[in-house]
């Protein structure tokens, strides 16, 4: 059947379009009617309301900043709170000639030209019209009185009360909790302008920065009617701000103080973890500084002193200090060697006081030049025998060593909520090729076996590696926040636990570490002898300057600041670890002599009661029933 030829029916099309045009016209008329009605409603029905607002008064929307969440230690003691403080604000639109007003402020309060420049910069940072911009903080009673007396000369200038961050514990938590400071221009660009419209401070470092979103809260606002001079006449509408979440930390104020006391004024770092939970119990980087200085803007002079001090108080040694782990890495190396099958629990190495690679003249020396004779794994850990670990490292090889040490957290950031942490370095063939364009040399593997060479770790990483031995490989990232607004911290990318071919390998290394303090020839026997409980630990030394082949390390010849750093890691009680500690004493020279007593003092503070007895909750028989602290 032939298809009928479809002709375009122009008349029909035109009719169709014309009908649609009528519909369109009706729509346009209806919607324009709506617009006219809306304008009528606003301009006639609501005229009185709007004209009152606009003629004699003005409507303003004022942000109400939320109260920043508080920070507590694990026992509920305040670490960061908010304190009322008076600041001087300028509203540019009300000041008229605001530059002239600033001159008057400087004159009235007897300030300097630099202050004047700072004020001008702060005023220009104001973000919305009619926003009072704070220019001077922490006004004294006297300053407030001066402003009040001269108020007639200071249009647009007001004294405003606001809550400002305060750190009652001063220096104790400057390196962990951090501090807040004034929002700078760079931060301003990245911020949600609405939520921060009433906020002048933001977390700059530490917990204050990491949990900024939680601590800040949600801005509130009020619509207010003001008179022409800016005085608020009445509040039309108010939405309360939502205060920020409180954070309870895992840190313990008493332990923190004890750890600082244990360092005894020396430069260094202490970090204490609870192995089973990853909670950071104490975190010390000495010397420290007063975070309160930074809150309302530190003076150039104070900042210069902190920055230029040879003791580097601003330097976070726990998170950013990188040290060769030295012999503290040996227990982990031993576990790697056992699991890879290159050594066995009973295999022995003869130590004549040095180690030589086949066909190479170079002698890799044991610290004990005389040699320890035949050593097995546990003796090697107890004696910190370098020769045994040269041999182990040579057999293990760099590739497997890199894999094992990475699983212990070396060469990567291990913490959950510590922004400042650096990853350290666990070298590999690829790294060396990329970094130096050179192949890997076997000798470099040897010195890695005793924690020297390219390897670098932070005290936090050393503590975590030790904690992993204490938990037999169970990974929990170290963290500072115990609960945020009542919720526990969540690890978005948990590390896989370390699984060994035979779990008894853990025990071998742990027993070796216990022998360091309690064995007859243990390197830290003097410290172990005084302990009321069993400690498993390992000393280490981090070289500051390299010693030439054949030369002997002589501390007396060296400048004090070039002496070796002393390291010690450990956990206790050895059979039921409750605390893992890593200590680094800058230029302390002797791991077992200087750092080990610090570790023991920190453990004592955590584990012992006032009678010098192990607290009941930590005694093995009761540990199952005891409630966790």
């Amino acid at each position, binding site marked *: 059947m032939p298809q009928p030829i479809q002709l*375009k029916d122009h008349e029909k099309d035109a009719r169709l379009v014309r009908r649609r045009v009528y519909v369109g016209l009706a729509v346009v008329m209806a919607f324009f009617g709506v*617009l006219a009605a809306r304008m009528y409603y606003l301009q006639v029905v609501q005229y009185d309301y709007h004209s009152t607002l606009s003629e004699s008064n003005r409507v303003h929307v004022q942000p109400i900043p939320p109260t920043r969440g508080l920070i507590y230690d694990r026992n509920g003691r305040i670490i960061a709170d908010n304190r009322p403080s008076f600041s001087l604000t300028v509203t540019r639109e009300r000041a008229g000639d605001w530059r002239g007003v600033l001159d008057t402020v400087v004159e009235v309060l007897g300030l300097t030209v630099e202050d004047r420049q700072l004020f001008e910069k702060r005023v220009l940072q104001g973000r919305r019209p009619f926003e009072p911009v704070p220019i001077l903080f922490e006004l004294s009673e006297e300053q407030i009185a001066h402003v009040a007396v001269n108020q007639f000369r200071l249009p647009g200038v007001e004294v405003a009360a606001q809550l400002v961050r305060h750190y009652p514990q001063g220096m104790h938590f400057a390196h962990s909790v951090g501090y807040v400071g004034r929002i700078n221009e760079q931060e301003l660009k990245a911020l949600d302008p609405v939520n921060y419209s009433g906020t002048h401070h933001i977390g700059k470092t530490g917990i204050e920065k990491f949990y900024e979103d939680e601590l800040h809260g949600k801005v509130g606002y009020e619509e207010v009617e003001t008179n022409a001079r800016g005085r608020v006449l009445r509040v039309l509408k108010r939405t309360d701000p939502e205060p920020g979440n409180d954070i309870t930390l895992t840190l313990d104020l008493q332990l923190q103080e004890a750890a600082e006391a244990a360092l005894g004024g020396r430069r260094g770092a202490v970090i204490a973890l609870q192995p089973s939970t990853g909670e950071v119990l104490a975190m010390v980087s000495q010397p420290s500084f007063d975070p309160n200085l930074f809150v309302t803007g530190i003076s150039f002079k104070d900042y210069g002193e902190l920055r230029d001090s040879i003791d580097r108080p601003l330097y976070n040694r726990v998170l950013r200090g990188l040290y060769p782990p030295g012999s503290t890495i040996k227990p982990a190396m031993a576990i790697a060697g056992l699991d890879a099958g290159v050594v066995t629990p009973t295999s022995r190495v003869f130590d004549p006081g040095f180690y030589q690679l086949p066909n190479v003249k170079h002698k890799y020396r044991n610290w004990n030049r005389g040699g320890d004779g035949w050593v097995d794994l546990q003796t090697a850990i107890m004696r910190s025998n370098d020769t045994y670990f040269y041999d182990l490292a040579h057999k293990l090889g760099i590739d497997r060593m890199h894999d094992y040490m990475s699983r212990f957290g070396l060469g990567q950031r291990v913490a959950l909520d510590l922004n400042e942490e650096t990853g350290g370095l666990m070298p590999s063939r690829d790294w060396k090729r990329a970094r130096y364009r050179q192949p890997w040399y076997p000798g470099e593997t040897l010195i890695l076996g005793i924690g020297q060479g390219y390897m670098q770790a932070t005290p936090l990483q050393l503590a975590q590696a030790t904690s992993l031995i204490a938990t037999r490989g169970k990974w929990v990232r170290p963290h500072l926040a115990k609960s945020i607004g009542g919720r526990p911290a969540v690890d978005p990318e948990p590390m896989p636990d370390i699984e060994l071919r035979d779990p008894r390998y853990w025990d071998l290394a742990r027993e070796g570490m216990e022998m360091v303090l309690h064995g007859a020839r243990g390197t830290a026997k003097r410290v172990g002898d005084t302990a009321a409980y069993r400690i498993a630990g390992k000393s280490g030394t981090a070289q500051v300057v390299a010693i030439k082949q054949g030369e002997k390390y002589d501390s007396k010849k060296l400048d004090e600041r070039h002496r070796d750093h002393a390291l010690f890691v450990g956990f206790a009680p050895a059979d039921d670890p409750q605390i893992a500690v890593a200590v680094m004493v800058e230029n302390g020279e002797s791991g077992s002599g200087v750092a080990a007593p610090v570790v023991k003092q920190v453990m004592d503070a955590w584990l012992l009661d006032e009678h010098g007895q192990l607290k009941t909750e930590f005694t093995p028989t009761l540990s199952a029933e005891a409630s966790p602290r």
Partner: protein
Amino acid sequence: MTASFDPTLSSEDVLRRRASFLQRIHLDATLLILLLVLGAVGLFVLYSASGRNWDLVSKQAVSFGLGMAAMFVIAQFEPRFMARWVPLAYLVGVGLLIVVDVMGHNAMGATRWINIPGVIRFQPSEFMKIIMPATIAWYLSRRALPPSLKHTLVALSLVMIPVLLIMRQPDLGTSLLILASGAFVVFIGGLRWRWILGAVTALVPVAVGMWFFALHDYQKQRVLTFLDPESDPLGTGWNIIQSKAAIGSGGVFGKGWLLGTQSHLDFLPESHTDFIIAVLAEEFGLVGVCLLLTVYFLLIARGLVITAQAQTLFGKLLAGALTMTFFVYVFVNMGMVSGLLPVVGVPLPFISYGGTSLVTLLSGFGVLMSIHTHRKWIAQV
């Protein structure tokens, strides 16, 4: 004038002989007068809204002149000529939008501009405001009306490609206008009512379902703030609160030219661009707003007359869509400033400051004039 046109005349020569001078140079007197009135009003209001900024006003005047020139040139082209080249222009336009998209992402920020330094700098999305309805009109005018389901779907996909690209820029206002311009072609082409109703009734459950199952809380919050800006008085809502106060305080007769207070005291951001109607409403009152609405209405009415009288289907569809899009411009802008609609960046035609939008709008009217003054009795399909 145009009203005296007699459809029984069958030769262009006769038409030419009887046509006025304006018709011979392809301009439509009614449209021209209304446009000049709007242009003048716009400059007056802008002078006040910009805080007596002569530079701004003279720049706007120059843009208006350029737009008039563009309108004049475009009016000289026959609609048949436009229909021939529109598919190519569409492809070029989409290509440029993709270029902008890629460049924008490489520059790690949103950009709407094609910029060849020293040569040319323009927004491809503005270009699409005219190409879009022309493309759909070209496509549908070659098919039987009302469009079949297949042709409707093809037309809508042609619309959605540039719309989605522009939404990504992100420029919600422009993408909505382009969506409207394409959709109006299909509507005027006689899209069946039951399909329209069907689509609307199908969208409701989908939207409700998305709301309850697909959207996160923060996304819901964003939608709510968008629909009700006054719930966010520190962000967009601030503009609305202030613009409502400005409009409302104008009353019936207004405070007088240059005498508005709300809009001059830095209360009203963007007072010379998207929110300029608040200035006009404050200074000229309800009377001024209604007069402006009347002028807009006359323009739209004239556009619809041209639609009805157009001889080719392409001309009808294109004229109708351009006219209705112009209406959307006006309605969306005034609706958002008076707090009826969510805030999307749509300027008020001929009044808001902005050269690009002026030139585009006047070009659109150039197309309308071309359609109206190139009529021959034999239809060009």
